[in-house]
């Protein structure tokens, strides 16, 4: 008899499980060794509680009613539940707080796209450590963790969620036009961005700036030659860069157009790339406003690695057959 399971879910059998264990144990060891205490939170939460965060691209999708009629959701990430834990259980604890986790999260899928409904994330949250120090620490732990599992060719894209908004402010884009521009950039639709810019009535130099700046990405020279106008975001990226040890700095690609599709990021954002995989392996960033929504305003930063994607990338590197490794 063949009994189906929902698309986007899978059974993990012993051979694969053994490989995944090696990865998660190596990640967990680095997290613990870096001073991060492991936590676990319920997979089911009250919808009203998680809704305090702006999850945009990763909203909880699976809902059920409990026996009292309250709406429960399956969590879609671990950052928001940990923000809840900090506000609820660590109201007066000394800072910073360091937590790590390895937990399944649940996302909606589009049909026929091979997207997972259930994904295993491994990550950290560093709470009460402002930029740039906290950001540099998170990046360092991220690289240590990826090094520990033996991923060879990865790079970490680093940008700043406030860069493009500040740039728009600097050339006085009308508030009504900003949402459209940032939407086009978030979709990385540069053709649409150019079209919308042409309709703004901005002078040609301002339009060129808004089109060109978010396409700049590369080493430290990107920061050196970055346009004026988003001074604070750029200064932030430079400060982070100055705090990184050489091994970590060598992994970093500064990307002035990096925007993540989760709404709560406020400052630095990052994504992990590997030539063996066509999609990012993980990502994270600063969310300095999120904790405040749960009642304890604290600056915070974190990242999550998709364990399955990491596994695919590792296998691809090993076999030299990765998507982009031609």
């Amino acid at each position: 008899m063949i009994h189906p399971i929902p698309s986007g879910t899978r059974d993990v059998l012993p051979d694969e499980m053994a490989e995944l264990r090696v990865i998660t144990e190596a990640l967990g060891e680095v997290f613990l060794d870096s001073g991060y205490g492991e936590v676990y939170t319920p997979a089911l939460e009250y919808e009203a509680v998680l809704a305090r965060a702006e999850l945009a691209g990763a909203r909880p999708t699976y809902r059920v009613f409990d026996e009292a009629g309250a709406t429960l959701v399956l969590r879609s990430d671990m950052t928001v539940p940990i923000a809840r834990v900090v506000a609820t259980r660590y109201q007066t604890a000394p800072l910073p707080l360091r937590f790590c986790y390895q937990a399944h999260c649940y996302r909606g899928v589009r049909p026929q796209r091979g997207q997972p409904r259930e994904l295993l994330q491994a990550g950290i949250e560093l709470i009460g450590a402002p930029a740039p120090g906290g950001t540099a620490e998170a990046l360092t732990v991220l690289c240590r963790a990826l090094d520990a599992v033996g991923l060879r060719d990865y790079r970490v894209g680093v940008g700043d969620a406030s860069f493009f908004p500040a740039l728009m402010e600097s050339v006085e884009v009308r508030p009504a036009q900003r949402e459209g521009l940032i939407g086009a950039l978030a979709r990385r639709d540069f053709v649409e961005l150019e079209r919308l810019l042409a309709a703004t009535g901005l002078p040609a130099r301002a339009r060129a700036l808004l089109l060109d700046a978010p396409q700049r990405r590369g080493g430290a020279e990107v920061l050196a030659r970055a346009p004026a106008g988003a001074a604070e975001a750029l200064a932030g990226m430079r400060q982070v860069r100055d705090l990184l040890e050489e091994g970590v700095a060598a992994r970093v690609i500064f990307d002035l157009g990096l925007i993540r599709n989760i709404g709560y990021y406020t400052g630095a954002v990052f994504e992990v790339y590997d030539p063996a995989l066509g999609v990012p392996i993980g990502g994270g960033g600063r969310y300095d406003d999120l904790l405040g929504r749960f009642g304890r305003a604290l600056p915070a930063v974190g990242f999550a690695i998709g364990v399955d994607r990491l596994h695919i990338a590792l296998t691809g590197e090993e076999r030299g057959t990765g998507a982009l490794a031609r």
Partner: protein
Amino acid sequence: MSTVADGLTIAVPRGALFAETLELLGRLGLDTGELRTNDRKLLFQELGVITMRPSDVPTYVEAGAADLGITGKDVLLEQAHSGTDGARTVYELLDLGYGRCTMVLATAAGEDPAAEALRRLGVVRVATKYPRLAARYFDDTGRQAEIVEVKGSVELAPLTGLAEAIVDLTATGTTLQENNLVVREEIVQCSARLIANPVAHKLKAAAVDELLERVRAV
């Protein structure tokens, strides 16, 4: 023999955009002779080119099986998912300017049967090769539509009573005219676009930017 750009693989659409895409690649200094003559071969490793049907281009690029690709905006719109959640997972870098055409809503000449259907039946049947794009358009304009997906000549649908209206691409309007159809609404302008895989866009940034410069220059 040289590739399009150092270390980059580009997905090239066969079909309506093929000739002009080859012209562009030729202007970029690629020897397109074999691409022109050998229509059975799909993978031209020494050129850094893969050929495929246009609607497959975003699939290959999204997965990173090609770093860059060329396809029509119509394909990108049809494959973009609706709603506000999340980015599309290919980057749209450049409007290449060729393959210009318009996505239109067309119905039989004379009194508009779509308007009549909407007025009397509350819903219009629309035949199209672009079901998601058409559904989104009718949603966005607050009208109810029953979308009928067809794979071949859409013009047949209103002539045979399968649907009152069609949503389709038109460049010159000749095919519509020949089938006694008139454009009622222009939905969106389409043309060939250069798209990129997000990871390649970062990890091969120098090569991607260099190619972009050259494409803009020719």
